[in-house]
């Protein structure tokens, strides 16, 4: 049985935010001997880091606009490849000049890359078309750069594991709801367990906010003004990789001009729209249209390709004009804010802006400042040491990895739970054992369950069944496995009511298993449907009907709690029969 973890009253550093940046800071500080705790209001990696485009930048995208950021990217690109090879697919990147891209930008591009230290080689378009036959044939020139594709959840997980090996902890579903100050000093921080509603108060020596787009809110809790300008970016997930190389337009960065192959899919992005609240945004029709229209300049056949879903992330953009004295300007890409110098709060630092590519550098610079303030001399070792779980061969991930592993252990479809992404029964069992209690959406982030073309149509009932079975056999304690991500709470006040209880019931009562499984199923389906909605046409719409037929037609999900509506408008709960029911006698 999984023990309830109670928060330690005392830690050296409390890190708010379990995205790549927070995870990197937890790792960096714990390696310097500090005892740290990281909390995130959702599952780890559910903020922007889990909703980004997936590109390990070479920096070439920024050579014209922001050469400093470009330089940081290429340095960190090399570091990440070295310390986290299993999270990187070495796709390489292309910058291609379509007829829509101005000549002068293209002409200056290689020199600008050279100036930023980015290897950039012009390649013949004939070669490019041979390798990437789906590309627009009127592309005139092409340059190869060391872009790559980077898996965020594994990267975060590896950073956390490294820290946990050094006695630091990271806890999901714990939200910072109150920060108490004693003059210039943060004396305590209240952390709510969003699943049970219980609140713990801890007294860290130091607080680091790595809350990304939410950093303004954390600062506000501490009584500090920090203006963020969250920028929403929308992306489209294509069912298949029409390219195995990251493809960028060679022009001043704009909307819909990058295609990134990520695992089995290819992701087209992004848009950029400023949003007032990082928790509340919709994907709009015109964004989807604009993305496809722009994307077709790279891949003309795009509108005939199947889009699985659309999703959006929120950029943690920092809007204040940084000046030399308050706020330490490192580059325009990210800023470490020393709230002592800036606002007179002695034990508080925020890190804002940046990119996932430079997460480690951001973490190092933040940790350097923290250590300097706490009086720790140990240097950062995160660039030199390989992360845990990178395999003995330190090989890059490649697309065929999962299938070849499955084939190596016998293959076949008998043990497949998620057929689209080749998630096997042992993989699911392992994840549940290590992460219970968790929602099926957590399972998805950990295993890619439900992320393929059927978007959960065929794996949801299987996974839910396995969870129910495990509870019935008591190999897992009965617990709420529904969609536990809380609705966006107002901050403050703290949540008074449990936001969807995790009930650590030791003795499962009869029916618990089935009921929990049903709830998990409905919750997961709704979440999957949500992302499909903006792109529900053609094949994907047909697939939705297949799923609707399975769950609302055959399995009668409308009778389950919360199941009357599939969020899609394709489910019809118990239609009224006109003309009298044909009652069976």
């Amino acid at each position, binding site marked *: 049985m999984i023990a309830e973890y109670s928060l330690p009253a005392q830690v050296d550093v409390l890190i708010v935010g379990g995205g790549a940046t927070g995870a990197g800071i937890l790792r960096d500080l714990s390696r310097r001997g500090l005892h740290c705790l990281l909390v995130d209001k959702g599952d780890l990696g559910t903020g922007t880091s889990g909703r980004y485009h997936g590109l390990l930048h070479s920096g070439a995208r920024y050579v014209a606009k922001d050469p400093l950021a470009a330089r940081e990217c290429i340095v960190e690109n090399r570091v990440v490849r070295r310390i986290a090879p299993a999270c990187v697919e070495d796709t390489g990147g292309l910058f291609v000049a379509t007829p829509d891209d101005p000549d002068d930008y293209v002409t200056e591009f290689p020199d600008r890359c050279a100036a930023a230290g980015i290897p950039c080689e012009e390649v013949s378009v004939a070669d490019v078309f*041979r*390798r*990437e*036959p*789906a590309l627009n044939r009127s592309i005139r020139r092409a340059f190869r750069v060391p872009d790559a594709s980077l898996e965020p959840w594994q990267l975060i997980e590896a950073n956390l594991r490294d820290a946990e090996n050094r006695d630091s902890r990271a806890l999901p579903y714990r939200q910072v709801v109150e920060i108490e100050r004693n003059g210039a000093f943060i004396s305590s921080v209240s952390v709510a367990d969003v699943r049970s509603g219980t609140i713990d108060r801890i007294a860290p020596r130091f607080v680091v906010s790595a809350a990304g787009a939410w950093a303004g809110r954390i600062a506000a809790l501490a009584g500090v003004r920090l203006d963020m300008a969250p920028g929403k970016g929308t992306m489209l997930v294509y*069912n*298949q*990789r*029409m390219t*195995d190389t990251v493809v960028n337009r060679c022009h001043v960065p704009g909307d819909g001009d990058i295609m990134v192959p990520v695992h*089995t*899919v290819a992701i087209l992005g992004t848009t950029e729209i400023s949003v007032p609240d990082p928790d509340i945004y919709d994907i709009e*029709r*015109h964004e*989807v*249209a*604009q993305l*496809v*229209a722009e994307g*077709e300049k790279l891949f003309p*056949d*795009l*509108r*005939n*390709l*199947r889009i699985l879903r659309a999703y959006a992330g929120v950029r943690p953009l920092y809007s204040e004009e940084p000046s030399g004295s308050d706020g330490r300007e490192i580059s325009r890409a990210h800023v470490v804010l020393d709230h002592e110098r800036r606002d007179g709060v002695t034990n508080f630092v925020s890190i804002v802006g940046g990119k996932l590519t430079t997460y480690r550098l951001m973490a190092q610079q933040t940790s350097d400042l923290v250590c300097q303030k706490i009086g720790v001399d140990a240097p950062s070792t995160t660039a030199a040491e390989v992360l845990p779980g990178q395999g003995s061969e330190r090989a890059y991930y*490649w*697309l*065929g*990895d*999962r*299938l*070849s592993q499955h*084939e190596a252990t016998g*293959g*076949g*479809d008998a043990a*497949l739970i998620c*057929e*689209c992404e*080749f998630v096997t029964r042992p993989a699911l069992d392992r994840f549940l054992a290590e992460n219970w209690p968790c929602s099926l959406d957590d399972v998805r982030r950990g295993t890619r369950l439900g992320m*393929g*073309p*059927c978007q959960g*149509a*065929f794996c949801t009932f299987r996974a839910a069944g396995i969870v129910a079975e495990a509870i019935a056999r008591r190999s897992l304690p009965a617990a709420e496995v529904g969609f536990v991500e809380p609705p966006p709470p107002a901050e403050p006040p703290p949540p008074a009511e449990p936001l969807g209880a995790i009930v650590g019931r030791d003795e499962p009562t009869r029916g618990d298993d089935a009921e929990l499984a049903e709830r998990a199923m409905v919750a997961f389906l709704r979440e999957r449907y949500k992302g499909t909605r903006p792109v529900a*046409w*053609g*094949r994907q719409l*047909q*697939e939705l009907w*297949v799923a609707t037929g399975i769950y609302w037609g055959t399995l009668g999900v409308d009778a389950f709690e919360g199941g009357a509506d599939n969020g899609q408008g394709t489910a019809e709960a118990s239609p009224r029969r006109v003309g009298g029911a044909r009652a069976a006698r």
Partner: protein
Amino acid sequence: MTIAEVVGAASAEAIGLSADACLKCNVCNTVCPVARVTDLFPGPKYVGPQAQRFRLGALLSPGTGEDSVVESPDKTVDYCSGCGVCSTACPAGVKIAEMNNRARGANRSGHVPRLRDWLLGQTDLTGWAGVLTAPIANWSLHNRLFRWLIDRFIGIDRRAPLPAFKAPPFRWRLGKRHRSAQLAGAPPPERAVVYFHGCAANYYEPHVAAAALEVLERNGYEVIVPPQVCCGLPLISNGLYGAARGRARRNLEVLARYARAGYRIVGTSTSCTHTLKSEYREMLDLDDADARAVADATWDICEFLLDLHDGDNLDTAFGTVAATLPYHAPCQLRSHGIGLPALDLFALVPGLEAIDTDHDCCGIAGTYGLKKEKYDIAMAVGEPLFRKIRSMGATEAACDSETCRWQIAAATGARLRHPVEILADAYRAADVAGPKSPARTEPAARSSPTAPAGG
């Protein structure tokens, strides 16, 4: 740009991208003859649209570039026989069999081909070697030691049906027929057709070619037999795309000349005609004007004869062939999407009762069933068909595809014939019975080679 303008519901043309259309309905898995009999093969859905998403360079045509990056991690796709049943059954139009074929090719590209796969691909070479040394070659094929050796060292199952060479090859028996690569001197297209005989009719079954000539000429067509090489299908199914492309180009160069001039190209091998119709374009990416002209001009012989009949141009003065004849429609024929024209033609022959065996695949699928590791699978796939034919007590059966004929013959002991041979018999039966009232005349027993004793 509005959403309405960018919503595309069509699926992409490319074989690889057709995986987009898969809705996971499982229909393909329920029809696959191989998955039905072995757990070594996880089924079309798994190796097709599912595995496709895990293939690097999925869009590339294997073997097109020296630095081909195509890589497919699943080895089980090798157990797909390529019968094509799944592609015809898929309600969403996923090109599953084609995808599998490419994945198999990808697994082999960049590697030195296995001697066996290379050998099985070289039907021209083995054909010539065989007919030139026919007595020795044929003796070896039935020699237990020789078969044991090739089983052991090459990997062709010692029990597999290997046909006997017939010397001289069909092309040497052409007489005065036009056989130039040039149009000059050829009879006009209204009165003539081009015949593509393929390897089987040339080296192993010249009687099938002879029957085709007889039937076509009976219907007033002069038959042109221009120079040709193997269509390349054995190379394609053994993953040797480069060599296949070479064969295809040589054939296209000659055939396109005729196709453009309005000639129809008729073949007796369903697999050859299917290759000309679609594989050159789909599998080998030779989608140019020549390939399209040839594809449009190509007809399977039964399809062609039935078309004549539809236009009232078929000589239907068939004599009686009193027989009950099991007929197996090969999977290759189903891929043509032309129905089962042989059965329609058989219905025109008095006395002939053709029975559709209604089984999807005999198992051989070209060269698949010859391979040592697949022989048992192939036999299991065809078993219900063999049982049906055996239980009918038939001594003769008909099938359009040569390799299927050899497989069924070996498994059942029946004599296997091409439908056009049966039609030739029927015409001959009419001749013997006299020109008066051909349809009603009872033939003399010996006039019909197909008539079983007492028939």
